[in-house]
């Protein structure tokens, strides 16, 4: 399957995770020329663990030695994690930012922050209000043009966010509820049609937000140096890209305004985002 500009091939010792992927990624194209950028393999830690308490080890071109296996019931999550891992460790074409991205009028809004800051949730809610979802996990910066490329994989919703987004996206296509993961309950949402149909369209970055959930509404402008450090920490391949990465990052922090925003609930956040977007 192809997500944005990146092709994947997923293999598994079991049929179930593949069947779920096939259903949820049905509308996605195949890798360019049939040659994927990355391979993902879900395999059993020991041959007998295929059947007996089946546990899925995340494999692929790039692996972390300390990733723990997941139960087979969480096979879809394992596949998503392994795909993310290939991007985090192996992506060299684009500067990779651990951020969600949405687009309107050809301009992109990037949101990055600590886990639980709500970047996936906010991106899904903005998409429900007409924005184009470009991705809820990674934003890809093209070092040559400075444009943001989409990586609209399945939106990963956690715990309370699942109900919030289900209410906001009545006709949404969801994956199965995966309970009891290391991050609590997880449910995947298939991005809206326009998000998949237009995934090859890049956008000009226009605003970078660092949201924080659970605080009274507040916002502050960030200095370029602080944005630079925060974004290099949010990038897994900044150093590996060398001078191309430096140029792309400098251009981003110089040209794109950045704000930290605190918000107590989704409605307040959406109001703040729309207001800041109007100014930018």
């Amino acid at each position, binding site marked *: 399957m192809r997500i944005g500009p990146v092709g994947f091939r997923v293999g598994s010792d079991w049929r179930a995770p593949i069947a779920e992927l096939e259903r949820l990624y049905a509308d996605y194209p195949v890798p360019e020329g049939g040659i994927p950028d990355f391979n993902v393999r879900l395999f059993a830690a020991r041959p007998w663990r295929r059947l007996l308490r089946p546990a899925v080890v995340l494999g692929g071109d790039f692996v972390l030695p300390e990733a723990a296996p997941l139960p087979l019931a969480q096979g879809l999550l394992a596949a998503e994690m392994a795909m993310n891992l290939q991007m985090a460790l192996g992506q060299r074409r684009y500067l990779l930012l651990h951020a969600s991205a949405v687009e309107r009028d050809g301009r992109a809004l990037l949101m990055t922050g600590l886990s639980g800051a709500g970047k996936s949730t906010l991106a899904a809610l903005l998409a429900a209000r007409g924005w184009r979802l470009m991705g809820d996990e990674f934003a890809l910066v093209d070092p040559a043009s400075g444009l943001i490329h989409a990586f609209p994989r399945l939106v990963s919703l956690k715990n309370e966010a699942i109900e919030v987004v289900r209410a906001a996206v009545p006709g949404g296509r969801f994956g199965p509820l995966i309970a009891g993961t290391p991050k609590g309950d997880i449910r995947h949402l298939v991005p809206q049609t326009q998000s998949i149909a237009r995934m090859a369209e890049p956008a000009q970055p226009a605003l970078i937000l660092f949201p924080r959930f659970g605080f009274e509404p507040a916002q502050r402008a960030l200095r*370029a*140096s602080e944005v*630079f450090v925060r974004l290099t920490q949010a990038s897994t391949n*900044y150093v590996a890209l*060398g001078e191309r990465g430096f140029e792309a990052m400098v251009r981003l*922090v*110089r040209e794109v305004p950045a704000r930290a925003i605190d918000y107590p609930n989704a409605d307040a956040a959406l109001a703040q985002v729309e207001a800041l977007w109007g100014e930018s």
Partner: protein
Amino acid sequence: MGLTGSAMGKAMVMQAMIFRAEPAESLRIQALDDFTLIFHRRSGLTHLVTAPAPEILAILQEAPLNRDELLARLGERYDLEDASPAALDARLAELIAVGLVEVQ
């Protein structure tokens, strides 16, 4: 280098050394705000620095100097509020540790 022994001994060693900066073409320097970014082409590493690191590099790029010469040069160009050799030694040691300055 093997800098061991007392701080006094260290200061005397620093005093005798000649310092050379990485050449200008090896550095991409971008002043952002109070901080300046330095991309070091030879190592591929990025350093975020504050004053007086860019000023020291600029002077040493003109010609290698020993510490006292460097201190004098800084004093000519800037209004030095704390012309302490020990502080300059500390700044030089940092620049040496990241490889932007080399002992000749």
